[in-house]
């Protein structure tokens, strides 16, 4: 007898380590085949012992009843079954995943091993052999599972280890079979081999897990590996801490091995969960939570153990006591948390609703911030959130500034000024939302910054004088950001609409001006022409006629006085004078408004004008008329416009160009009258024309342009310095 189980009946009946077993159930010890193979016996009823001191003992172990047997064996059987069941369910839910299949086989092996462990004590045929076989199978299946989880990573290490462990399994199988046949007797070596295999398998699995956990955060494999690890921890740690460690330290186990063994069932459950679900909870956060609880438990346990010693419930502070306290502390924590969660769930809907109410208020407010009017918005906030007051300050980098208050701040201007100064100080700080110091009339300050727009919102204290909480700040910030965006939008819109209005007005004005100017031009030209016409007519009808008449009479008088020659020279002088007068008057009339234009038409008038010029100036005019009959008439407006164009153009040639030759063209094409004046004189800088328009000089050419345009035609000047000038006009014929 090397080991005793303190819970076992044998111990209770007095067996101690060091006793030598003589016979079991009347049979000599050596006869038992299981003793031969495995050095184990189970299920004995009657034992004969000889203690180390030499006294013989006889023990009758009561055969346990059915219920007792059941209660002892059921947990383990259930555990084995649950392993297999979880594996099966996983496979059913994810039939196509290779991970699910691998888990299934692993769980099957583990389940069989556990199941057979209880069966082997009944000395069933080959039970122990099968147990050994399955036990050695588990490591290789474990490594196989790990190597395909979560993604197939069959690297050299994994494949090699799988092969190795399969070899071990094979060895175990063969040796067990040989044992059955009776050829081989090694037991301890086999056991050690299985143990080594188990350790190697576990280490390799652990190594793979660690590799996965060291992956970068964004890879899903990391989270899956963490949860697998958590599963392992939750499953194995209770057993390890509360059962294994005490045994190792030769203490009484705190937790019955059977119960701590049940925790192991959580391992396949969690692993199956990881495989079935693609989207998992945050493994890191769960790990953190577990660590926090563990630390809390450790500290509480230490405290409790100390308390126990102080209160003299226990005599000494040893590991067993401590672990017991640890267990109690952890259980208490778990229980308390569950109760709190349940109560919160139940009453949170009905009784203690502050969090929800606040959230609901903020949501409603978000929805109802419909208006774009800043004053309405801030007063809405005051009303809905039940605050004392709200102050909104907004500005942009072009000098616009807005300040709107509601509630208490509306009346109290001093507080507004105070908050203003806070705002200006806070403008350059980085934080977007912060709690104000206690002496400030506002409690929360939220800043919103976008492009060149800056908005700060001060939220006053609650009417109930209850302070805002940290967890309320994000919602308040979101709300204030919304308000600030509305303000920005309304500001941008009003600025845009102002600009557009301004532009529309100025466009309208410009159009009107331009229209007005055209009309003014038209009237001016008309007035001018009428003036010239009237003047020519006046001169013709008045002074010229008088002059002609006087001239004739004088001539008559002269002839009459031929008889008396001495009076004649005064007369002759007068005749001369009058002739001059008439001559000049005629010239004036013609140059003002040639009657031939009305009487004979454009072509004749232009011809006459050219001939006249050629007499008076050192200029040769070459007049070319195309597609126009000499007596072709156009509207008075058109003939006048064309005549004046040519008149002005030729005057300019005479005055400015210094040329001795000029081409004049009149052509009729496609319902238009085309006019051309081309010289090869000094020319001028055409770009200066627009300056002339502005400065009002050189009205002749500009006036000509306006006049032609007023007739619905086109006008163009082409010129380069020293390369002459080409004037062209097109007047549509109606």
């Amino acid at each position, binding site marked *: 007898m090397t080991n005793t189980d303190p819970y076992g009946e044998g111990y209770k009946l007095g067996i101690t380590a060091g006793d030598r077993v003589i016979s079991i159930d009347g049979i000599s010890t050596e006869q038992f085949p299981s003793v031969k193979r495995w050095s184990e016996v189970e299920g004995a009823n009657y034992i004969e012992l000889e203690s180390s001191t030499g006294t013989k003992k006889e023990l009758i172990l009561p055969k346990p009843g059915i219920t007792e047997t059941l209660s002892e064996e059921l947990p383990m059987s259930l555990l084995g079954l649950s392993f297999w069941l979880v594996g099966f369910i996983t496979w059913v839910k994810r039939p196509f995943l290779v991970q699910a299949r691998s888990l299934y086989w692993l769980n099957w092996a583990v389940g069989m091993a556990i199941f057979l462990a209880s069966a082997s004590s009944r000395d069933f045929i080959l039970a122990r052999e099968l147990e050994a076989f399955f036990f050695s199978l588990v490591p290789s299946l474990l490594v196989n599972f790990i190597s395909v989880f979560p993604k197939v990573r069959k690297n050299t290490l994994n494949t090699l280890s799988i092969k190795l462990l399969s070899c071990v399994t094979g060895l175990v199988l063969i040796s067990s079979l040989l044992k059955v046949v009776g050829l081989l007797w090694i037991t301890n070596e086999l056991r050690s081999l299985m143990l080594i295999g188990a350790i190697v398998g576990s280490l390799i699995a652990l190594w793979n897990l660690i590799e996965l956990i060291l992956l970068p955060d964004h890879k899903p494999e990391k989270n899956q590996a963490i949860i697998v690890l958590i599963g392992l921890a939750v499953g194995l740690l209770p057993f390890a801490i509360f059962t294994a460690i005490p045994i190792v330290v030769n203490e009484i186990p705190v937790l019955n091995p059977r119960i701590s063994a049940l925790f192991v069932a959580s391992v396949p459950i969690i692993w199956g969960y990881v495989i079935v679900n693609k989207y998992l909870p945050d493994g890191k956060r769960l790990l953190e939570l577990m660590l926090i609880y563990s630390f809390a438990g450790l500290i509480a346990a230490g405290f409790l153990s100390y308390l126990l010693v102080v209160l003299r419930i226990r005599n000494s502070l040893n590991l067993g006591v401590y672990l017991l306290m640890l267990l109690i502390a952890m259980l208490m924590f778990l229980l308390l948390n569950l109760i709190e969660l349940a109560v919160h769930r139940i009453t949170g809907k009905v009784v203690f609703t502050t969090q929800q109410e606040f959230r609901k208020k903020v949501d409603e407010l978000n929805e109802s911030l419909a208006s774009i009017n800043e004053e309405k918005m801030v007063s809405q906030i005051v009303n809905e959130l039940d605050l004392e007051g709200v102050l909104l300050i907004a500005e942009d980098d072009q000098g616009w500034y807005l300040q709107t208050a509601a509630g208490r701040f509306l009346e109290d201007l001093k507080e507004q000024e105070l908050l203003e100064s806070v705002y200006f100080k806070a403008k350059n700080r980085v934080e977007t939302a912060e709690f104000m110091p206690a002496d400030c009339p506002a409690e929360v300050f939220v800043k919103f910054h976008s492009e060149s727009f800056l908005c700060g919102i001060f939220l006053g204290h609650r009417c109930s004088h209850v302070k805002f909480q940290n967890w309320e700040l994000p919602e308040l910030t979101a709300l204030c950001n919304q308000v600030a965006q509305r303000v920005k939008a309304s500001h941008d819109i009003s600025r845009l609409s102002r600009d557009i209005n301004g532009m529309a007005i100025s466009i309208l004005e410009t159009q009107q001006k331009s229209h007005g100017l055209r009309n003014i031009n038209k009237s001016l030209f008309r007035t001018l022409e009428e003036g010239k016409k009237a003047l020519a007519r006046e001169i013709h009808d008045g002074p010229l006629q008088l002059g002609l008449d006087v001239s004739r009479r004088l001539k008559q008088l002269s002839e009459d006085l031929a008889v008396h020659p001495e009076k004649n020279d005064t007369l002759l002088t007068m005749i001369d004078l009058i*002739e001059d007068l008439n001559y000049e008057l005629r010239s004036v009339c013609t140059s003002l408004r040639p*009657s031939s234009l009305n009487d*004979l038409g454009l072509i004749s008038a232009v011809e*006459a004008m050219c001939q006249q010029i050629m*007499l008076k100036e050192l200029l*040769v005019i070459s007049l070319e008329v195309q597609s126009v009959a000499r007596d072709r008439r156009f509207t008075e407006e058109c003939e006048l416009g064309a005549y004046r164009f040519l008149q002005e153009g030729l005057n300019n040639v005479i005055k400015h160009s210094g040329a001795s030759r000029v081409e004049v063209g009149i052509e009729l094409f496609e319902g238009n009258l085309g006019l051309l004046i081309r010289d090869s004189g000094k020319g001028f800088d055409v770009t200066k024309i627009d300056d002339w328009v502005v400065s009002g000089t050189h009205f002749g050419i500009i006036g000509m342009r306006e006049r032609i345009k007023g007739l619905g035609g086109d006008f163009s000047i082409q010129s380069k310095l020293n390369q002459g000038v080409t004037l062209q006009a097109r007047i549509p014929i109606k």
Partner: protein
Amino acid sequence: MVVDDHVMVAEGTVLLLATDPGIAVVGTAKNGQECISEVKAKKPDVVLLDINLPDICGIDLVDKLKEINPEIKIIMLTGQNPQEYITVSLDKGAQGFLLKDCSKNEMTQAIFTVNQGNVYFSQSMGIFLRSAVISKQENAEREQIEGLLGRTLTGREQEIMNFVAKGLHNKEIAAQLGIKTRTVDFHVSNILLKFGVSSRLEAVLSWTQGDKK
């Protein structure tokens, strides 16, 4: 018959002509309408027609009068430069041109010439006639004109030509020489006739070429 819209001119002309025994003024008219009705009524041989009538251009009237009486003789009267009108009037069938400030003698002479079936042009119209002549090829006028062609310039004309060649305008030349502008114009037109050119520039070119010779 005298047709003119200026009453004083018309009456004055009538008075002038009344002194000549060979001419009898049968009527006057102030506008085209009156003219036509009077011509129909009075049937004159010669009509003195003002180009500038209020309701119709005198030249268009020529057509109408010719319709009434194809044999009627028409002398156009004008107070202005007649250049443009000459060709057209002749095309339509007018027989003569007179400036309104012509002397009585000229007027009577014109009436008699025209009545005999010839054409008459006022003396001072020489230069204006050249283009008309070219298109009409009336021998009589051509003689009148070509009489001047090729003649050498008078002293005065040469003086003036010098100034013209320097680029002075007629007004300036008149100021330089102390004569009337009208006189200078007259000389210049003669010069152009003598050179046989129709533009001042060509005259200068001929003059300078002549100088070089």
